[in-house]
């Protein structure tokens, strides 16, 4: 995450706001919500169901030009805005 912030490239856009916007638009159905914290578990908040995970993966791949391996589709990488952003930043920098 830190790495991504300190070494921005031209095609980089701030990751966390884009992830938040997607989640708010598609899972929370509310904008600029104070209800959803960056560290909050999406599953514990009942925001993500089994189809939601697939929607999220498709969004990340399209938006950030990454390809997620099966083994990467795990809650550790995807269960909060912060975790997702960190994961995407790692993928893009690798």
């Amino acid at each position, binding site marked *: 995450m830190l790495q991504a912030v300190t070494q921005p490239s031209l095609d980089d856009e701030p990751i966390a706001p884009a992830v938040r916007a997607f989640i708010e638009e598609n899972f929370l159905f509310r904008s600029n919500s104070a209800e959803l914290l960056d560290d909050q578990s999406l*599953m514990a908040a009942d925001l993500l169901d089994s*189809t939601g995970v697939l929607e999220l993966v498709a969004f990340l791949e399209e938006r950030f030009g990454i390809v997620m391996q099966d083994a990467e589709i795990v809650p550790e990488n995807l269960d909060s805005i912060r975790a997702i952003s960190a994961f995407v930043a790692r993928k893009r920098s690798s």
Partner: protein
Amino acid sequence: MCGVAGYCGVDSSEDVGRSILTDMIGALRHRGPDDAGAYVDGNAGLGHARLSIIDIGGGHQPMSGERDATWIAFNGEIFNYVELRQELIAEGVQFRTQSDTEVILRLYEKLGGRCVEKLNGDFAFAIWDRTRRELFLARDRMGVRPLFYTTVGGTLYFASEIKALLAVPGVSAELDPIALDQTFTFWFPLAPRTHFKGISELPPGHILVARDGRTEVSAYWRLDYPEADDPLDGDEAAITEEVRALLVDATRIRLRSDVPVGSYLSGGLDSSLVTAMAKALQPDRLTSFSIAFEDAEFDESAFQDHMVKALATDHHRFGCGTRDIAEIFPSVVRATERPMLRTAPAPLFLLSRRVHENGFKVVLTGEGADEVFAGYDIFKESAVRRFCARQPGSHSRPMLFKRLYPYLPGLQNQQPAYLEAFFKARPEDLHDPLFSHLPRFRNTSAAKVFYSPEMARELQGYDALAELRERLPQDFSRWHRLSQAQYLEAAHLLPGYILSSQGDRVAMAHAVEGRFPFLDHRVVELAARIPPRLKLKGLREKHILREAARDMLPTAVGNRPKQPYRAPDAQAFSDPSAPAWIASSLSAERVREQGYFDATAVAKLDAKRRAGRIAGYRDTVALTGILSTSVWHDSFCQRKNETNVTFLGGHHASSRHAAIAGR
């Protein structure tokens, strides 16, 4: 099969009484187009809309008993009326008709309210006892036939459907927020609650006695299971034989009719078995009906063909596409009188219309087998969740969830870590009496994110799961886990959702009576006593039923894994050519005016719908629930004052009468 209505309370003139009964019965005409009748006696009145099935010439209702001291209005069938009639005749009772209606009346004259204990059937009836000046209402054990009531100005009104109650002056429709919250948790409100504030359902297996302005509701039957370590004696072969014999008898008495009886044939085990038994019992003639879905994901035509060939029934199949579902959905909501989270009732609504068009009034169905003999995936899911909980972190155990749901693509593409995460039992869940159903209840509850702030405020502090837990029978905790899960399905979901929205209501919308051999209370009671290991054997659902059906079905059908009956949900509402009512129901203006849901959130869901991106369970039930609530509101809640009156404001329109009676 018919519709009943009536009242008991404050004295009114004969003219006023008849006028009210006429309006009430007018609202039930679809249930009984063949005949109508009314009876008024001072402070009480009975009305009846008749679909003639047994003793077509002699069964006019309301019907009176000895010296006109008792009067009855009856909806349903008493399948053992032949035997009961013989018993009564042997005791010297004289009959005027051949009808099952008169059997109830004679039994009541002999036993009073305890007559219900002798009845094997699907019934909702009202008896006015002139001598005692007492109204007696009763409903069948499993909740096949509906019965609702409300009180206005000291008078109790009752009817087969809520439409008829809304025809009574002074009764208005207003959404009960708790009922909506229960629906957005369980898919249905917990009886006696209905979606209509102030209107109650007489729960299955209950009677109501009204006298001198007092009303008493009590249970005469309850679904019961043995303690976990106290199952039925006898070996598997003997139990199998007992199940077979009883099912054949349950089917045999359900073929009693003075009009032809047809059969629904989905291609699954349950309806195939019922159809096979019916064909064996009446080899000459049997007409069967089925739905073919355009979408291969839901279609079972190949299995239907197999059965039709094996049984040589005269089969009628009608096609159902997403467009049909979207178009008919508002009519389904008006027929079932409820917001609903699934579209599955819609194809059955269309099917009953075809049955009616083909001249049939009665069909047998396989409904109930999954509850009674443990067929639903949720029973297996629950067992697998416990299995996984014993070894947290296992990667192989969660893969079993894929085996449970071969027909759900979203789940098939899931990684083990997420499978485990979704189905994972939290430590406190393992001791929760609702353990088996927690994932479903939680997934459904996720759709509450769409509540409007007013709705959320109104429901603050209310916990639907807690209410259900409190209502469980005292000995529930001593039952086997499978029995507990079966109880939740059979005592709650079956009457609350399945029979109410896929059974009586969608069939009777077209004057078709469904008959359910698996819901014969003798079958239900026997199945409850069968050891759980014989119902769910490993992950083989309905094991004992499959064994009982072995010689009656082709192997391919008998061994076929369970495919739950499902219909296209979100797809039906997302098609670019979907009917206009969908977009207008989701418009910000309409959503705000109705006040139940958050207009901004609904707009985002609608954007997802228009993009064809609604695929998951939560979004699907939310979309269906929001649409059906909107249709429900438009159909039943007439607001006189248009100036910003919300459903929470307690505003009552003064007359529901004209608006509803004509629908």
